[in-house]
């Protein structure tokens, strides 16, 4: 029997509009592979201190997907953003210093360009690091490959099949929002996740 920890996948990535296509593709792929996507956007109004919430979610997830591609210097502040590398460090620290099931943590690190991390975060060499080129199809393939490696006794849909299903979901998403009576730009992460889970259950992979 699987526990929530064994199926939990912590998604550590940007949440802005520019990254949205990759974020949605990642959430969909995690769900379509039978895992549970989690991220810092959960329980948005819960009042829990943000870093405390992130540490709790990391503790509750065996798997982590960390996108460190957003390292550009901000036009206004002229400084880079460090949230994703920080959370990657927390995840690797939990794996290193945690006990029991925390030791079983597995990570996938994503960047936009191959080997670029060597110039700004070379200490992560040796992790499972893949480039997505800002393309959902590449992100789907990388996430699916990581989760497939983690599974021994189950079959997963292939990356092309997942991408096809994700595209079909995206086509129906505006109508799903209208049916549930929520503006599409106000859809919360947990609502998106619930819609994806239900859509997947209602559109089983053809055997």
């Amino acid at each position, binding site marked *: 029997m699987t526990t929530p920890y064994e199926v939990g996948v912590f998604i550590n990535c940007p949440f802005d509009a520019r990254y949205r296509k990759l974020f949605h593709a990642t959430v969909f792929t995690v769900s379509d592979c039978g895992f549970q996507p989690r991220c810092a956007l959960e329980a948005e109004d819960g009042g829990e201190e943000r870093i405390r919430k992130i540490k709790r979610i990391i503790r509750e997830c065996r798997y982590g997907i960390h996108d460190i591609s957003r390292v550009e210097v901000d036009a206004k502040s002229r400084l880079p953003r460090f949230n994703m590398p920080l959370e990657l460090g927390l995840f690797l620290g939990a794996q290193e210093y945690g006990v029991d099931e925390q030791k079983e943590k597995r990570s996938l690190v994503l960047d936009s360009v191959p080997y670029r991390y060597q110039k700004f975060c070379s200490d992560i060499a040796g992790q499972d690091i893949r480039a997505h080129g800002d393309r959902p199809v590449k992100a789907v393939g990388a996430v699916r490959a990581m989760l497939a490696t983690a599974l021994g006794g189950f079959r997963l849909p292939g990356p092309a099949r997942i991408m096809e299903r994700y595209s079909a979901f995206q086509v129906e998403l505006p*109508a799903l929002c209208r049916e549930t009576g929520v503006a599409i730009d106000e859809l919360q992460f947990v609502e998106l996740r619930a819609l994806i889970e239900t859509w997947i259950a209602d559109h089983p992979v053809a055997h």
Partner: protein
Amino acid sequence: MAKKPWRTVQFSEDTGRFTRQQIADAVRVVKERSEARKKNGRRPRTAGTAGAERTDEASAPKPGDVAAAPARAKREG
């Protein structure tokens, strides 16, 4: 030789402002409409059609396009 089983979807407890039933109903209704359109061979109306209500497909992103629904909170990095 028997094939390995498929992974089944994991349902999360938190469904936000919706009930699980509301979500299930929405998915079912949209799926039925979508299948009916395919069956009838109808092409979706375009968003530019004067006076026409936008159809699901017309207002939807094309496969592979930028997803349309952001989560509430945003983070740039």
